[in-house]
């Protein structure tokens, strides 16, 4: 492997146990891997295999019971809550399955949200960054639309713009296409591939095995352990796949 690339994420034997009543649920049983800058990683596995738990670790929303996690060289496990909040704010972009936009709020305001918690940005810089991110996801003409006036695909684009606005070290997506139809899902994939081409590091949790073909690496989980970790040398183009989809007929 080409070890000259920069390591963005490093997990060393990360374990995460939950106490449920008297029982201990072992959601992650020792996970070790490195993710390099510019990789597009899909994480797959059966339901309950620990994908979301792993992503929460990567996103600094949760800390390991055991093991260590380095994000961009910073050890996360011993950090305080507000230090982790700051880390999320500066280094991570989240995309959720259910978009999670603020209701009755315009696209620009939604995208500005992470920068609200960063004192380095003033109002005009915030707006400029938000507009740039929205243009990057193809919503340059929907800046002032409110979240309830948009389609699912558009809302997810706003969510992706929000994840990009702080120029994060890594973009994390949990079932980001789970609520969308096939066509819109492929549109999202096209977008993620474009971001990948621009050099972004992306980690994409999905149920859909097909999607692995469009990423550069696929990690398969089972029972809280890495079952398979493969590099995809033959990355398919989501744009081509989208073009070959049947055009939906209007009734």
């Amino acid at each position, binding site marked *: 492997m080409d070890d000259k690339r920069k390591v963005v994420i490093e997990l060393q034997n990360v374990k995460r146990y939950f106490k449920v009543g008297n029982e201990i649920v072992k959601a992650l049983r020792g996970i070790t891997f490195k993710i390099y800058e510019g990789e597009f990683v899909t994480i797959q596995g059966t339901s309950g295999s620990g994908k979301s738990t792993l992503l*929460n670790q990567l*996103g600094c*929303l*949760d800390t390991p019971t055991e093991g260590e996690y380095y994000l961009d060289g910073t050890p996360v496990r011993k950090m305080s*809550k*507000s230090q982790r*909040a*700051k880390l*999320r*704010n*500066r280094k991570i972009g*989240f995309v*959720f399955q259910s978009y*999670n936009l*603020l209701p*009755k709020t315009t696209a620009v305001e939604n995208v500005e*949200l*992470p920068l*609200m*918690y*960063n*004192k380095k940005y003033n109002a005009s810089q915030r707006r400029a960054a938000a507009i740039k991110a929205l243009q990057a996801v193809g919503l340059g003409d929907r800046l002032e639309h409110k979240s309830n006036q948009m389609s699912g695909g558009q809302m997810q684009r706003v969510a992706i713009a*929000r994840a990009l606005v*702080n120029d994060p070290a890594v973009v994390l997506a949990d079932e980001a296409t789970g609520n969308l139809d096939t066509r819109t899902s492929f549109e999202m994939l096209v977008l993620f591939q474009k971001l990948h081409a621009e050099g972004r590091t992306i980690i994409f949790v999905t149920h859909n095995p097909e999607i692995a073909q469009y990423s550069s690496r696929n990690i398969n989980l089972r029972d809280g352990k890495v079952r398979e970790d493969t590099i995809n040398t033959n990355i398919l183009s989501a744009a081509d796949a989208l073009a070959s989809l049947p055009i939906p007929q209007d009734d």
Partner: protein
Amino acid sequence: MSILNLFKVAIRAIFSNKFRSFLSMLGIIIGVAAVIIMMAIGQGSKESVRANLSQMGTNVITIRPGAETRGGVRQDPSAMQTLKQKDYELIERNKKYVTYVSPEVTSSGQAIYGANNTTTSLYGAGLDYLNIRLWKIEDGTFFTEDDIRKSSKVCVVGKTVVNELFPDGGDPVGKTIRFKSIPLRIVGILKSKGYNSWGMDQDNVMISPYTTVMKRILAQTYYSSINCSAITEELTDDAIAELTNILRESHELKGEAVDDFTIRSQQEMMETMSSTMDTITIILVVAAAFSLLVAGIGIMNIMLVSVTERTKEIGLRMSVGARGLDISNQFLIESILISLTGGVLGVLVGWLGTLLCSSFGLPATIPLWSILVSFAVCTLIGVGFGYFPAQKAARMDPIEAIRYE
């Protein structure tokens, strides 16, 4: 997040639930308005009582018979008969800090003129009485030294007595009326003083020479009180000391012997009055303040609902980097805004209420500090009752919060 943005978020949250926000404000509005009105009435009545008392003379000193009563001990009736002619004369002869002196005896009963009658009070007084009590003669004259010496059957009357006995007009001066069947010739009419703040008609009076009232009506040899006035309000204490000395000598009280008379100044009266009024005001304000407490609990309730409703939003904000402090500030500012807006509206309503009270004749003036206190209290309520919901929001786990449906 910056304060400005926190305010924007809070205002948006309040406006997205206008009716609910208004309902939780309503408690504060009512509470603050009640406090303001109570304070205004307290302040207003105090001012009007003061004005009334000073109308009766601020440097008045009243000597009553009998020792100062403490703990409700009953006094022998003979102890109430200690003020006599001799005391009056001694005061007249020795006074230095006292300008005017007048004995006073009172009797109430019916005054009759022709077919008309009215119940009134007859005061027996000396020549200085008008100067002490700040009465003025509007028509005719006051009775004279000579009238006192001869116990003349003359009187001056107040406006109410005139109106009751002479409903058809005509000049009452020179007419003879009867009080308890004693004929009294009217020599003068008192200038009206109106009602005092207890609602007592100050014009329902008659004044005759004290000798007349004592000999012809009451058949007694003692005074019910002696009225004096100090040279100035500031010299009241010296005047009281002087009077005490004169009376102790006159009554042959030596060493440890207790005074068999009581001296009160109008100043003392005013202070007692003020402090009584203050107590009443405090009780009213405390009662009103309890409604603010209830209002605060209302705000806490609404904020808890609001926090629960916005669990997902809290989770999202946390996931994009909001710290617990940012979240708790957001909700604190929201609850402060609700209670402070309620406070502003409450002051407004209280002000209108005060105007209404005044228009109904209830004396009411808003003390400025009560407005400032209201705002301070509202901020405290906002912080105090918003704190718990804000902490609840700040302590949420981002993962669980964002999954919340």
